[in-house]
């Protein structure tokens, strides 16, 4: 019985050693990957901030104004006049035309009128 125990212990020890080394290597690989990812994130953040800087450079009012000035004639642009700004409720109602059902009757009247006058 003691002998069996010894055998089991040796096997367990060997198994444990293999397992521990596996875990160790896996941990190293994971750490390396984490570092890699971190580096990649840093790079992406750098790129993002660079692109943001470029975005705001391209959106500078001075630059936009220059572009607009260059294409004013082509696009038929002109500065906004305060008189062009108003609220929706200040606009007059659209004049409503005759309902479709009335249209036939109306044109009949019209025809009759013009016919008579001739």
């Amino acid at each position: 019985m003691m002998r069996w125990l010894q055998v089991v212990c040796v096997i367990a020890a060997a198994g444990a050693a293999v397992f521990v080394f596996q875990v160790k290597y896996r941990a190293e690989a994971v750490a390396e990957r984490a570092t890699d990812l971190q580096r990649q994130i840093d790079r992406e953040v750098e790129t993002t901030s660079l692109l943001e800087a470029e975005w705001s450079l391209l959106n500078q009012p001075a630059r936009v104004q220059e572009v607009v000035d260059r294409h004013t004639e082509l696009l038929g642009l002109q500065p906004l006049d305060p008189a062009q700004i108003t609220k929706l409720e200040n606009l007059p109602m659209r004049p409503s035309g005759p309902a479709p059902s009335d249209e036939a009757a109306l044109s009949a009247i019209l025809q009759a009128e013009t016919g008579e006058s001739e």
Partner: protein
Amino acid sequence: MSGSAPASAWHHANGAGSRKPNRVDRLGRQRVALAMAGFCLLFGVLAIRLVVLGASGGDTDDNGRHFVLAASQARPDIVDRNGETLATDIKTAALFAEPRYVIDPDEATELIVSVLPELDRGRLRRILSTDAKFAYIKREITPRQQQAIHKLGIPGIGFRVENRRFYPGGPVASHVLGTVNIDNRGIAGMEKHIDEAFLNDLQAAGFAGDHALKPVPVSLDLRVQHVVRDELSKAMERYQAIAGVGIVLDVNTGEVLGMSSVPDYDSNNRDELLDPNRLNRAAVGVYEMGSTFKAFTVAMALNSGIAKVTDSFDATHALRVGGFSIDDFHGKRRWLTVPEVFIYSSNIGAARMALAVGTEGQHDFFEQLGLLDTLNTELPETGAPIIPKMPWAKVTTITMAFGHGMSVSPLQTAAAGAALVNGGFYVSPTFRPRAIETAATLARPVLTAETSDTMRKLFRLNVMKGSGRRAEVEGYGVGGKTGTAEKVENGRYVSDKRRNAFLAAFPMDAPKYLVLVVIDEPKPEAPGRGATAGSNAAPTTGNIIRRIAPMLGVEPKAVDPTEEPALALASAR
């Protein structure tokens, strides 16, 4: 084998133990059990330690990366009130050497100079020949240069990643933002303020990591800022002026939405900062503001109760005080009502009002408006006003009534002007966003609501009927006061060199924004035409308002609600 050689307990245990257990055998078992318990304990401790390490996350991060990124200090981005980037950090490489590891300084020098021809060969060789641990060779090199040097593979030469400040707008808001030195430390404007307010402390405590800093918002609106600068640049060209100042202020919160002083400098080019012609004339320069001060004098007289808006003042002849003669530019030679004094910009009328209030009253009033003390904003650069020593002579009181004899900064004037139209509260201007509730706690009552209301009408009347006519923008109810100050040269006033100002606010039924424009030494637009404030500062102000009002969401009104009350005031007897 059986019992004949009792050499060891081990023998017994192996050979005969299973059949006939004796004392020695029992002892052996106990020892083995003890050893097993010991190992179990040991591995148990290891296992627990492992679990503890696993739970705490462990320090697998490499520390070298942090060293590299922290080489030059990171700064928070600066954004405008709408979140548009005004300043940001971008990464650049700095070339450095560890001279003690450089094997062949001569060869290394030649190789580096082949990529960076602008370097001084002799100096570089000297640096590389030393036994130093670290030396910068060139900072802020381009990615292409970095690549080329990297390919040369010189031992003892390396790169450090550094933060470099970048201002996408270039000069657009340079006087507010300021700039930084090569170590990314603020040396002017908001950049310096940020350092002094918190960044230096954060860095000392080690909390200013690369992405740990939140963007710092400023009160500017990039679009408004651009319009102000653009219109000033155009005005400088049109009137061949030597300088211009434009300020847009929220009258209720004191936030500066736009502040420009041209000529200005590019924040990306810190060398220009030192050019004295590019100084911040809006906050640092102090000037005699001229007739714009009559607005303060009229407000003072009305608020003290000494004059009512229907009162008249004798402007039939020049006022003689202590050997000085105070006269009007275009004298009406009659008694003028308060609105007339305002719109005809009568020196005599303003002088008589100030005399009626008295020197003490004038001093107190100017003090209340913050005109006598240095203005404190976030900007480190600020100009101290030049004020005559108390007690003021009678003639000093008189000249101050129309803006001569004392010099204040345009920003100070704008802040005081806001108090005239916002209902009578002085709010110190700020370059950080400020909520209206915060402003309310900071506000200092200066005028009664009634006086402020009268001032609004007077300002509006002056644009409808007076000198500010060319600032009118249909629908926005603009009101304003001109100021044409002759400049002092060699101790004398010269009549052909002027500093013109226009102090305006809109919409006058409930003012939201104040615009102050100052144009330095404008020439007549065409020969024979005037060069007073009404013909250059006023139209420039009008152009600015026309462009910024839609951006700021001010609604143009088809029927101007400010017109009638202003006219009623003019005809009041």
